[in-house]
């Protein structure tokens, strides 16, 4: 598995002043794989995503990305977030960050930004190329909304959506950037059981379309059913990795979670 991974993280370390939020973390994701990253609150999972997507600059370590299409590898450390997205990594946010004063459709259209190119002159003169590109953006965005089940609400403000729908819109917006690696930060948080079940179907569908998925989640049932492999971290360190069956019986994991709420916290 190692030699054909699309994401290889080695020795990733992130310091905030005195706090070491990530401590020499190693992780890898293969093509079309669903990998879960779990750990107690404050373990450093979101920080890991922020390092991957260029929002934080890691203090040490190496992040390498290999495009499954071209097979070419590149180092992500120090790249700006938008460059990383363009390379094919997209994410959702734990604390939803939609553009609330824009419509649902426009939110997805923003995701198309990095795959389109028209600029000032194209916009003013509305050339054939620009018009074609716009229509393509609109059509592709509608298709994505259909996929995440929001096409009915396409022209409503994003802020008017329910919590679960907003999480799905975040996924749709990320998909619009055409990523081959999708990072989901607690996609099921705040969802009811029905919504969570729909989410599982959606994630599997996205995987079947060829995207690899790295997923942070506290809902253990979801993690155990979806994941091919699981990484467990605590206090910034990786404490275990393996298949769901292996993780379920791992001593270190049980110890880390002991006294904590292991079950789903669907508050």
């Amino acid at each position, binding site marked *: 598995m190692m030699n054909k991974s699309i994401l290889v993280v080695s020795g990733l370390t992130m310091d905030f002043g005195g706090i070491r939020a990530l401590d020499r973390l190693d992780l890898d994701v293969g093509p079309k794989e669903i990998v879960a990253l779990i750990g107690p609150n404050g373990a450093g999972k979101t920080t890991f995503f922020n390092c991957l*997507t*260029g*929002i934080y600059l890691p203090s040490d370590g190496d992040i390498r990305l290999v495009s499954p299409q071209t097979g070419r590898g590149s180092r992500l450390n120090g790249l*700006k*977030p*938008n460059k990383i*997205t*363009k390379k094919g990594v*997209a*994410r959702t*946010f734990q604390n939803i*960050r*939609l*553009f*609330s*004063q*824009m*419509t649902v*459709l*426009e939110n997805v*259209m*923003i*995701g198309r*930004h*990095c*795959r*389109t190119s*028209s*600029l*000032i002159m*194209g*916009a*003013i003169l*509305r050339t054939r190329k*620009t018009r074609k*590109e*716009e*229509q*393509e*953006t*609109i*059509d*592709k965005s*509608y*298709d994505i909304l259909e996929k995440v089940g929001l096409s009915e609400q*396409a*022209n*409503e*403000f994003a802020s*008017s959506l329910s919590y679960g729908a907003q999480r799905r819109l975040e996924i749709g*917006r*990320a998909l*619009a*950037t055409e990523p081959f690696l999708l990072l989901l930060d607690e996609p099921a948080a705040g969802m009811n059981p029905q919504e969570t079940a729909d989410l599982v179907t959606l994630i599997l569908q996205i995987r079947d379309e060829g995207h690899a998925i790295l997923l942070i989640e506290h809902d253990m049932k979801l993690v155990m059913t979806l994941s091919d492999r699981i990484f467990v971290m605590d206090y910034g360190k990786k404490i275990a990795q393996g298949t769901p069956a292996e993780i379920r019986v791992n001593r270190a994991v049980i110890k880390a979670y002991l006294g904590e709420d292991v079950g789903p916290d669907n508050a």
Partner: protein
Amino acid sequence: MITVKEVKRSLLVSLWFVFLTFPLMVIKVNPYERTVSWRWSNMVYVAIGTFVISLLAKAWFVRKERRMARQQDSCHARIPIIQRILQRPGYRYPLAAFLLGAVLAFPHLFSTYQANIMTTALMYIVLGLGLNIVVGVAGLLDLGYVAFYAVGAYSYALLNLHFGLGFWTVLPVGGLLAALFGVLLGFPVLRLRGDYLAIVTLGFGEIIRLILENWNAFSKGPSGISNIPRPGFFGLEMSLDQAMIYMYYLMIGLLLVTIFVVNRLQDSRLGRAWLALREDEIACQAMGIDKTRTKLIAFSLGAFWAGLIGVIFAAKTTFVNPASFTFMESAIILSIVVLGGMGSIVGVILGALILVLLPEYLRALSEYRMLAFGAILVAMMIFKPEGLIANVRRIYCYQGRKSNTALKNDE
């Protein structure tokens, strides 16, 4: 609808106002005759006036809250009346035709003096539309917008003085120079956020003004540059009145072009990126938008329009000096954008007309003019903080069919 509690509150408000205005409104000291007259009737007016106004305001808020509550039930946002009129094609074209007719006939129906005021208003509309891109759409609080206006004005004044260049040559040059300044300033500054950006741009505006004031060899200092030629029309000789009217039509033309361009920009890939940037920078970057570049484009485009209007300003007044480019100008242009409703073209037009024409026609109130101006702005912020024209998003139509898009992907 209005409870006893609210009546009590209004009474309290009116008492407080009576107390506050007592020395001003009631006591009148005549220093020559050394007498003091007590105008008790004024006190009664203040008491009744504030009581009624306070009650009305309260009632208004209650109504608004109830309306908001109702709105929550229906998922579609309520569209304000002006927008409803504008959106209906049956009204739209007659309205546009009427407006165009009125605008074209204006200088012939009224005095040149009126046309002149209107030209000023038109200039502020274009300035507002320019700043609207920066502040309203892209959300970059620029308090030094007047600096780019000054760059435009002085580029015409200086290029004409030293090289004898004419208005039509300098018009684009002034715009481009201002845009260049926008890029130069924006590059280091645009990584700052919110308040910090506001302070730095404010400083920049003042620096430009101070340079113009103190660098005598370059800009002739506070005495300014005079005898700047008015715009020519194929070498035609024009009387002062004709020149004024010509200026008016020129501004109408520029305004139409500006509306066209700004409208297209807002409704484009770039315009959407600006809006998204205003809402959430981090999410924007995570969606692959180059933050710095997108901001820089907005900033320099805004500066471009300020530059254009600067050139026109110099040509209109035939005289520039640094006193025309104080912070007050930036503040007025910013108020236009905020009053109109951030990001709305119609809003900016209304905002500019109100803010420029109102003080002009309130001249009768002489010293209370600025007071009234302030009161209107404050009332606006209380009753309609989202501006005159609220945010309405475009509805996009899906054109491909499922099978079609699948085919398109294969191409």
